[in-house]
């Protein structure tokens, strides 16, 4: 087993444990911090896949901005009395759905003959220039639409979150 594989399994275990922490921890703040750990683990997986661009985007956007936003929302929606039960009565059904999805997914992954584009050669890192070039040439229209989606969503968020004159 090579060094990269050892690192991958360590990071994978940590990410999976952090993900389980997000859905099981009782304290909402602990769950949010666990989400930060999971997101950074995912970023490390991107690095292992030698896609540095996604690594940076993931750390900056998820590890920074999105988690800060989530922590702010937790702060704004704090309730004095924490409910005795963090999960609803339907949690066995949720566990069943998640377990059966995972079973079907794993079986189909190992049942498929994947045709790798490259055989047993080391991964070369994906250059930023190539990604930018492709993004602005081939994927220019989806890129513009994505920027429009962000604009509309953020304007909508401002309109929704604003305190109106009639509000208490």
């Amino acid at each position, binding site marked *: 087993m090579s060094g990269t594989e050892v690192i*991958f399994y360590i990071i994978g275990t940590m990410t*999976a444990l952090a*993900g389980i922490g997000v*859905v099981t921890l009782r304290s*909402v703040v602990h769950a*949010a911090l666990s*989400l930060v750990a*999971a997101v950074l683990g995912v970023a490390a*997986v*991107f690095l292992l*896949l030698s*896609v540095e*661009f*996604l690594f940076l*985007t*993931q750390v900056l*956007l*998820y590890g920074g*901005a*999105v988690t800060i*936003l*989530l922590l702010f*929302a937790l702060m*704004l*929606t704090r*309730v004095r009395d924490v409910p005795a039960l*963090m*999960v*609803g009565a339907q949690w066995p*059904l*949720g566990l069943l*759905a*998640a*377990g059966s*999805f*995972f079973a079907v*997914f*794993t079986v189909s*992954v*190992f049942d498929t003959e*994947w*045709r*790798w*584009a*490259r055989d*047993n*050669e*080391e*991964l070369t890192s*994906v250059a930023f220039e190539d*990604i930018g070039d*492709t*993004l602005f040439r*081939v994927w220019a229209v989806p890129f513009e639409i994505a920027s429009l989606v*962000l604009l509309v*969503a953020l304007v*909508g*968020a401002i309109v*929704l*979150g604003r305190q109106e004159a009639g509000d208490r």
Partner: protein
Amino acid sequence: MIPLEHFLVLSGILFSTGIYGVLSRRNAVLILMSVELMLAAVSINMTAFAVYISPDLFTGIIFAVFVIVVAAAEVALGLAIIVRVFRQRASANVDEVASLKW
């Protein structure tokens, strides 16, 4: 070289924990956090496919970028709605926001 399947299984684990969280948590912010987990799992999946199976045009990587963009928009909108609901009902529990349920 790490086999492709192991990346897929990792993303499957993350996605199914996300499913469990979405279906069983009661706090709306925690549900949004589980959705984030599922989106991250999908990003891993598509990036692994892009690196291992179809490296030309970076389709999977670009998709992962778009997933991150849409996730940012979704979190902003979702949290605005949750804060709004909290102002009206003093609770972020999704069981208490059931007016549209039949």
